[in-house]
């Protein structure tokens, strides 16, 4: 038999086995977690699962799913021990061996699950979404357990549960901040910046001397440091969202300009000759050939700019703002050592930023389905 030993299951077996032995031999409640019946039972279960899996060398997606379920059960036990039994801050080595065993099993489980391939599109999509979700959930769990187990001070790093609690408890503030920063500054700046970048690109393309004169200047503007520009914009446009929108305009203008100018020269010589042979005018040429050909580049800029706009608006709020806004909240709550609020704002920024990017990526798929990178025969 040339079966390769399943290293991850073997590691899980070794870790949980060692933990079980230590748990049974040194059942001294004073030294930490050892001796709790729930913990002993969980260790025994992990031992047997890891042993069984490495013995059978089971690697189908179904087996992977079963492993994931076991790991989730183990994770729940770990959280119950930390918070329900009050062991946070005084866990022993056996506990960390238990976590290591879980980690090894989680790895093997996701690994098996990732190999899933089905002709049924819905099922395939379900598994394809499940994998990053599980991966993220595992990272959050590890973060929680490490912070609670080692009693890391909250100022350094609050556990995800504290962030979630703070998030749920300050929905009104977060909503107001989101509205101020995203709905006003980011969206307005994004639309104006991308729109004017696009319009100037078409103009630059039409008037050749602008290409020589204006593009280097645009390059210069894009190299301006945001921390220098933001206070100036505040002086020009006041404390409210308009100055942040102006910063966003400056940040998003150039990527759109450069990408559109490049995209407009993307149509091939043959395709242009074809238009010429039809006696097509400038605008027909632009709308029927050059703009469609430029779309992949334009969407590239829209995606880059969606993240740049978030960063620009939040950072700009550090330089003067009314008492609302994501950047304002972050800078003041850091000053008050209210780090879980800062993290809650980071979560909002992450969700808004990814959603924004995701919408642009979806639109890109819809409009550039014909491009070689998306084609489906």
């Amino acid at each position: 038999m040339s079966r390769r030993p399943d290293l991850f299951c073997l590691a899980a077996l070794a870790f949980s086995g060692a933990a079980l032995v230590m748990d049974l031999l040194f059942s001294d409640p004073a030294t930490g977690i050892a001796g709790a019946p729930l913990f002993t039972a969980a260790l025994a279960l992990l031992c047997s699962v890891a042993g069984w899996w490495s013995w059978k060398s089971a690697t189908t997606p179904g087996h992977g799913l079963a492993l994931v379920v076991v790991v989730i059960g183990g994770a729940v036990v770990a959280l119950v021990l930390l918070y329900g039994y009050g062991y946070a801050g005084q866990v022993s080595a056996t506990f960390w061996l238990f976590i290591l065993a879980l980690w090894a099993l989680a790895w093997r489980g996701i690994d098996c699950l990732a190999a899933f391939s089905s002709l049924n599109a819905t099922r395939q999509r379900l598994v394809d979404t499940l994998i990053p979700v599980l991966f993220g959930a595992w990272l959050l769990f590890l973060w929680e357990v490490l912070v609670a187990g080692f009693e890391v001070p909250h100022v350094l790093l609050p556990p995800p549960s504290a962030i979630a609690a703070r998030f749920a408890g300050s929905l009104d503030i977060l909503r107001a901040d989101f509205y101020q920063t995203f709905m006003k500054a980011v969206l307005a700046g994004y639309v104006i910046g991308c729109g004017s970048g696009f319009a100037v690109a078409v103009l630059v393309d039409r008037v050749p001397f602008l290409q020589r004169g204006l593009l280097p200047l645009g390059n210069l503007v894009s190299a301006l440091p945001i921390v220098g520009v933001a206070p100036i914009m505040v002086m020009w446009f006041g404390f409210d969202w308009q100055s942040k929108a102006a910063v966003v305009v400056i940040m998003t203008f150039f990527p759109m300009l450069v990408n559109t100018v490049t995209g407009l020269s993307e149509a091939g010589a043959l395709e242009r000759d074809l238009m010429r042979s039809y006696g097509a005018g400038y605008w027909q040429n632009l709308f029927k050939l050059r703009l469609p050909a430029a779309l992949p580049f334009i969407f590239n800029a829209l995606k880059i700019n969606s993240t740049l706009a978030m960063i620009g608006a939040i950072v700009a709020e550090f330089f003067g703002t009314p008492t609302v806004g994501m950047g304002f909240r972050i800078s003041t709550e850091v000053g008050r050592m209210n780090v879980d609020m800062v993290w809650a704002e980071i979560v909002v920024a992450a969700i808004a930023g990814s959603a924004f990017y995701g919408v642009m990526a979806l639109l890109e798929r819809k409009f550039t389905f014909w491009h070689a990178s998306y084609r489906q025969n």
Partner: protein
Amino acid sequence: MPETTKRNVVTCEDLSLTFETADGPVFALSEINLQVSQGEFVSFIGPSGCGKTTLLRTIADLEKSTSGSILVNGVTPEAARMNRDYGYVFQASALYPWRTIENNVALPLEIMGLAKAERDARVAKNLALVDLLGFENKFPWQLSGGMQQRVSIARALCLEPELLLMDEPFGALDEIVRDHLNEQLLRLWNKTNKTVIFVTHSIPEAVFLSTKIVVMSPRPGRIIDVIDCGFARDRTLEFRESPEFLEVAHRVREGLRAGHSYDD
């Protein structure tokens, strides 16, 4: 039809074209004299760099001549282009990947500003002509190379031009597909009685298709020989094994040799 009633579709007199490059002038065309009359199938043949594509592009007003005169349908090439007097088929299909087959064929009609009903009728008619009904809603990248090239022929025919300019349209296709398309093209030409100017570097293709073969030679690009071949219009692929065919093919090869096309 007596020869005298046939009108000249293309007339070149002492036509020359010189490209100025950093390495000095390149004489792409030198003193070309050529008449193409209505209903003819004329092939330009010659090695790379002999100016056959440049000559076709000059007829289409995609290049400007430096001296001499050229008339297309009795007017300048530019006027002929703006009148949409010709349909041009390129080496590659040049279909726009974001448009369906139907909309690709309709593209020139949109640019002309025809009404939707008229566009649809012409698209259906020309797709039927190249045997591609049923593919209207596919995208170009979902079709084979031969089918794509047929779409581009339908697109050129859509303008309903008297003159069809074809620049090595089947050059990128394999020989089996090429033979098949040659036969289809011949049938199409026979049926529609259009004038066709066809650039190729394949001797069998030129001899099989043409009523007149223009043999060209490079440096400077010039015409070596003009061979008339009045074969029956309804010839089939078997014709390529006949003695008449081989005789004309031999004469083309001799012409190419005289123009130093086979020199090292």
